[in-house]
């Protein structure tokens, strides 16, 4: 074995926790595109590692039951000698695995179904912008192939020409850069691994910042984009307060986005990014070592089984 069982299992747990801790920092500090990709791809890798560990434990524990070992053709005692698992650990792993399965299938049916409905609806539209005859100030990106921008008439009347372009460029960026898929990946990762529970919010902020930056580039004026976000935020929050709507989780995000647009992009050391990549690599490496070690242990157990049979 390359490393003792508890070492690589512990590494995956610690790396998951560290990834969850670094995620908000990356979402705030990194450029939107880099932050989005690092967080969504990284969280999927870390979540994958977090599935591999309990899966190995359950598989090995089952393999040590003589009945299964006899059918599969390996030595249960050899397996138990090389890969000892106490039964509380085995039971806990099975519980974790079951929880991961139910939580991820819940996300798949809930969020996945809504995403499908959005994709279906966007197919029925002929134009890249669809206007709602509403007095609310609302605009959103409806994902699909191709996705569509939806905006209320009231909002389009409230904004001036440049602000309308900023708004449309921002929403179109969500569609072109497939932010729906990045967010879905992060949601699945968080469902599988609760230590990544802050990652979806981080990806949300990162994609908003990426869209802001794209809009700023399109109209060539960061301050105008910041001012547009401010204006829409100020007006919608007034309306929201009137109708006593529950406030979204991402409230503080708008202030962060405006601040990010107004601050000059300056050169800084990518510390958060380096940390994030390091812990993701660590988690994947630990899971791979775990898989390799397990394979070795089973090969040894198979040989022991064959040896015992030929000796008889």
């Amino acid at each position, binding site marked *: 074995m390359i490393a003792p069982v508890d070492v690589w299992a512990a590494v995956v747990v610690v790396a998951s926790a560290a990834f969850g801790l670094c995620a908000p920092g990356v979402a705030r500090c990194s450029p939107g595109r880099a932050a989005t990709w690092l967080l969504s791809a990284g969280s999927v890798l870390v979540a994958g590692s977090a599935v591999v560990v309990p899966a190995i434990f359950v598989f090995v524990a089952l393999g040590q039951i003589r009945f299964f070992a006899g059918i599969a053709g390996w030595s249960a005692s050899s397996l138990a000698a090389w890969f000892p698992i106490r039964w509380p650990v085995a039971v806990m792993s099975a519980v974790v695995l079951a929880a991961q399965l139910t939580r991820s299938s819940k996300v798949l049916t809930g969020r996945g179904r809504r995403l499908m409905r959005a994709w279906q609806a966007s197919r029925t539209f002929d134009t890249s912008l669809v*206007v709602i005859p509403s007095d609310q100030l*609302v605009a*959103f990106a409806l994902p699909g192939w191709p996705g569509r921008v939806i905006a209320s008439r009231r909002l389009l009347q409230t904004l001036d*020409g440049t602000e309308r372009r900023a708004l449309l460029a921002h*929403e179109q960026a969500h569609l072109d850069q497939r932010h729906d898929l990045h*967010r879905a990946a992060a949601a699945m990762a968080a469902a599988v691994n609760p230590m990544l529970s802050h990652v979806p919010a981080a990806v949300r902020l990162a994609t908003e910042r990426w869209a802001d930056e794209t809009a700023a580039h399109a109209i060539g004026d960061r301050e105008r984009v910041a001012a547009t976000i401010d204006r829409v935020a100020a007006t*919608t929050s007034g309306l929201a307060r009137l109708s006593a709507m529950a406030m979204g989780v991402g409230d503080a995000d708008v202030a962060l986005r405006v601040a990010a647009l*107004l601050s000059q992009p300056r050169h800084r050391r990518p510390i958060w990014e380096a940390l994030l990549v390091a812990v993701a690599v660590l988690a994947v490496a630990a899971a791979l070592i775990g898989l390799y070690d397990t394979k070795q242990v089973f090969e040894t157990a198979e040989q022991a089984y064959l040896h015992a049979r030929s000796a008889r």
Partner: protein
Amino acid sequence: MEVDVRNQGRFEMGAGEMGMRRRAPGTLEAEVLATLWSVDQPLSAEDVRVRLAADLAYTTVATILTRLHEKGAVNRTLTGRVYSYAPVLDHAALTALRMQALLDDESDRAGVLNRFVDGLDGEGLGALREALDHRSER
């Protein structure tokens, strides 16, 4: 329809207008539609061109308007010697409203759809104002 959108992009680039930045495909059509929706009266192609906060050639705007008319997204009437265009409210708006309900679904606040901004609370708004004020001081 895919091809339409691409063509618009190429048209825009081919026109080689100064100060133009690269746009995502489909954005130009959206901008023209948004302009028509932002006012209460029908607009001619020239009216739209003036209101668009971008340096676009008249022919570019006219081409987009013609395509929008072919799609049934706008009505046009002959006023004098030029067409005036007005946006059409059709069943697409109903579907869009249903999608807004999807957005407002309590269980999907952090969601599938991306809003331009979420509602801000007092604290968030204060921080926002501060950032903007701080900026204008300098």
